[in-house]
C-alpha cells in the first residue's frame, strides 16, 4: 500500500516546525554532505541528526522502517566502491584470490556511503514529518510559489492511493476475462504494459474531471486567494535554520582541524 502518513503525530515538535525551515535545514545538511569527500564530515552530520531525533517527537519504529531501504542502498554503495575501487591504496586489509581490499579504498567507499546516508536520513526526517498540506501552504505563503502549481500538485498527490486500488481492480477484472500473466515472463511483461496503459487512461480521465471540479470552485480565476490556514515563520523556525548552518560549519571545521577534510571529489 502506498502511504504518505507522517512518521510522527501532528502535535510532535518537529511536525510543527515550518516546512520551509525544515526544507532549508535538509538542503543545507545534504549539500554539505555532498561537497565533503572525506569520511569524518558526514559522520559528524549523521551524529548531529541522531542527536536531534529524541527531541523531535518522532517514533523510532516507523522511522527505521522508512530508512531501512535507504540505508541498505548506502551499504551497497560502500561495498561496490570498496571492492571495485579504481586502485587499492594503503595497507591490504583482506584478500581472497584476486580480490584485495585496501584501507584506502575502504575509507573512500565508506565516505561515499556515509554521504548517501546523510542525505537520505535528512530527507526522510524532513519530508516524512511534514504534512503535504502544510508544505503546500508554506511554499505558497513563505516562498510565494504559484498556487496554481502548488495546490495542483497537492491535489494530484491525493489521487496517488486511488491508483493502487485501481491497479488491483484492473488486474482482478482481467483474471475474470481469462487474462493472466502466469509463469511466462513475456506474457507477464505484455500484461503489465497493457495494465499500465489502462491505468494511465483512467488517470487522465480522472485528472480532467478533477480539474473541472477545481475550476468550478473558482480555482485560478484571477482573484488573489485568501488563506484559511496561516503558516508563519516563528523564532524557533529561524533558530532551526541557523542551527543547521552552524552544524554544517562545525562539522566541516572539525574535520578540517583533524586534517582529513577534502572538498568535492
Amino acid at each position, binding site marked *: 500500500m502506498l502511504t504518505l502518513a507522517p512518521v510522527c503525530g501532528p502535535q510532535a515538535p518537529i511536525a510543527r516546525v515550518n516546512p520551509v525551515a525544515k526544507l532549508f535545514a535538509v538542503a543545507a545538511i545534504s549539500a554539505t554532505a555532498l561537497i565533503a569527500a572525506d569520511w569524518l564530515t558526514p559522520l559528524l552530520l549523521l551524529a548531529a541528526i541522531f542527536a536531534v531525533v529524541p527531541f523531535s517527537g518522532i517514533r523510532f519504529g516507523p522511522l527505521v522502517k522508512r530508512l531501512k531501504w535507504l540505508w541498505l542502498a548506502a551499504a551497497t554503495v560502500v561495498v561496490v566502491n570498496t571492492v571495485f575501487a579504481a586502485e587499492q591504496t594503503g595497507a591490504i586489509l583482506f584478500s581472497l584470490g584476486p580480490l584485495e581490499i585496501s584501507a584506502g579504498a575502504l575509507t573512500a567507499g565508506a565516505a561515499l556511503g556515509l554521504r548517501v546516508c546523510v542525505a537520505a536520513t535528512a530527507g526522510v526526517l524532513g519530508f516524512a514529518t511534514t504534512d503535504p498540506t502544510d508544505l503546500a501552504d508554506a511554499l505558497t505563503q513563505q516562498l510565494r510559489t504559484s498556487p496554481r502549481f502548488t495546490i495542483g500538485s*497537492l491535489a494530484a498527490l491525493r489521487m496517488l492511493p486511488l491508483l493502487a486500488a485501481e491497479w488491483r481492480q484492473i488486474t482482478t477484472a482481467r483474471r475474470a476475462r481469462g487474462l493472466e500473466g502466469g509463469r511466462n515472463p513475456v506474457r507477464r511483461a505484455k500484461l503489465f504494459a497493457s495494465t499500465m496503459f489502462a491505468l494511465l487512461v483512467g488517470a487522465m480521465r480522472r485528472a480532467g474531471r478533477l480539474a473541472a471540479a477545481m475550476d468550478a470552485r473558482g480555482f485560478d480565476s484571477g482573484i488573489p486567494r485568501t488563506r484559511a490556514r496561516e503558516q508563519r515563520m516563528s523564532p524557533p523556525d529561524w533558530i532551526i535554520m541557523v542551527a543547521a548552518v552552524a552544524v554544517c560549519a562545525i562539522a566541516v571545521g572539525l574535520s578540517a582541524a583533524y586534517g582529513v577534510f577534502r572538498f568535492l571529489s
Partner: protein
Amino acid sequence: MISVEFRGFAWRHAGRLASAVADVDLRIEPGERVLLLGPSGSGKSTLLAALAGLLTTDSGEQTGAVLLDGADAADQRGRVGILFQDPETQLVMARSGDDVAFGLENQAVPPAQIWPRVDQALETVGFPYGRERGTDALSGGEQQRLALAGVLARRPDLILLDEPTANLDPEGAKAIREGLRTALADTEATLIVVEHRVADILDLVDRVIALGPGGALAADGTPEAVFGEHGDSLAAQGVWVPGAPLPVRPSGDAGEVRLRGEGLTLAYPGADRSALDGVDLELRAGELLAVTGPNGSGKSTLALLAGGLEKPTAGRARVPGERTGLHRLPAKRLATHVGTVFQDPEHQFVTATVRDELAFAPRAAGWESERIEARVSELLERLRLDRLAGANPHTLSGGEARRLSVAGALAAAPGTLILDEPTFGQDRRTWGELVDLIADIRDDGTALMAVTHDRDFAAALAGRELALDQGKATEEATRC
C-alpha cells in the same frame, strides 16, 4: 437568486463535426427549482457546464449567449456552484474542513469568516465528522456530502446538480437528498438538477424541462403537467417516470447446482473483523440469486470469492468437474466455468474491437475457429451489438458497454455468471434492456448471482435472496 437564459446557444466540441447542442432558447426565472431531463446525448451536461463557465474557447466553439442576470455566464463563475456525479474526483484537499475552505479561499473570503462558513456548511449537509477527518477515510456518500458542503459554503446564486446520486448506494443517496432539502430550505438560489431517478427529488423542484436529442425542447411545465402529458415518451427515453410500471420476469424451476460455496471466509490482514465470515451458497441453473445488504456487509467480497478471483482465507468455491477451488484455477480455465461482470465495464475490455472482445475467451479456451465464429455472430446478434462489431469498446455508450461486458463474460459459455451491481446508475431504458438480457441468459440455463442494492431489479428477476450483514448471511429466503 439569479435568472438564467440561453439565447440561440449552440456548442460544438473541438474535433467533432456535429454540435452537442444547437439552437437552445431557454429562460429560467430567479429562484426557480428546475429538473432537467433528457436522453443521453441531449446535451444536459453541456448546458450545465456552460452555466458553470467551464466551456472554454479552446475546448470547442460556442454560438449564441449564456446569460446569468443578463451578463455572460463565463465571467460569473463565483456565483455558480456545481456538484458532479463522481465524489472521488471532486475533492481537492486531504482534510475535510480544508476541502470546504478551498472554494472560499479561491473566492477571496476574508480568513476570519472562512471557518465559521465551513462549519455551517458541514452542519447543513449533515456531515458526521469534524473538520480534521481525512477525505480518503470517507465513504462515497460522505464524500459527496462533503462536496455538496463545498458548493454551499460559497453561497452560490445558482446551484447546478449533475446526477448527484448516480454513483451512490441507497443510503448515501438518501443522505445527499436530506442535505439538499435542508440547504434549499434556507437559500433562495436558483436550482437546476439533472437526475434520472425522478421520484426521489420531485418534491425539490417546481418545474420540469425535458430536452430531446441535440438540446431541442421536448416538454416544459410543472411536474404534474409534464409527466401527465409526456410520461410515456419520457419513459421510453430513459427517464424513471414516477408510477410507470416496471417489467417482471419470474423464473421457472431451478436446475442442478452449478457452483457451490462452502464456508467462504476472507479476513484482510490487520482488519478487526472478517470481510466475509463462513458464507455458504449454491447457484443453480436457470435461477438468479440476489445478494443484498448494506455497504461493508461483504457483498462484493462474496462476488470475488465465488468468482474465483480472490483467495479465501477459509472455505472454497467449487464447480462440478473441478477438484480444486476456483481461485486455484488458471484464468483461462476459470473463464470457461464462471464469468464475472464488474461495475466498471471498461476495466474488463482487453482488445481493440467489439468482435475481438467476444472472441477473446473462446480463443483462449482453445475452441476451433468455426465454433468461435458461430458463437461471436450469435452473441453480436442477440445483444444487438452487430452494428458495432468493428467499434472500439472504449467508444461505446454506457448501455452498450454494459451489454458488451456481459456478452464478453458469456462468450466461452460458462455455466455461471456473477454480476456486481449490474444496474448501478443506469437510466430507465438501459435498466429495462439489462433486465431482459439477464432474464434471457437465466432462462437459457445459466446460473446467476447478482450483488445488488436495486430492489426493483431483485424483484424483477431473483428466485432467491441472500442477505448479508457484517460478513454473515442473515437469511436465505425464497422471494417473488
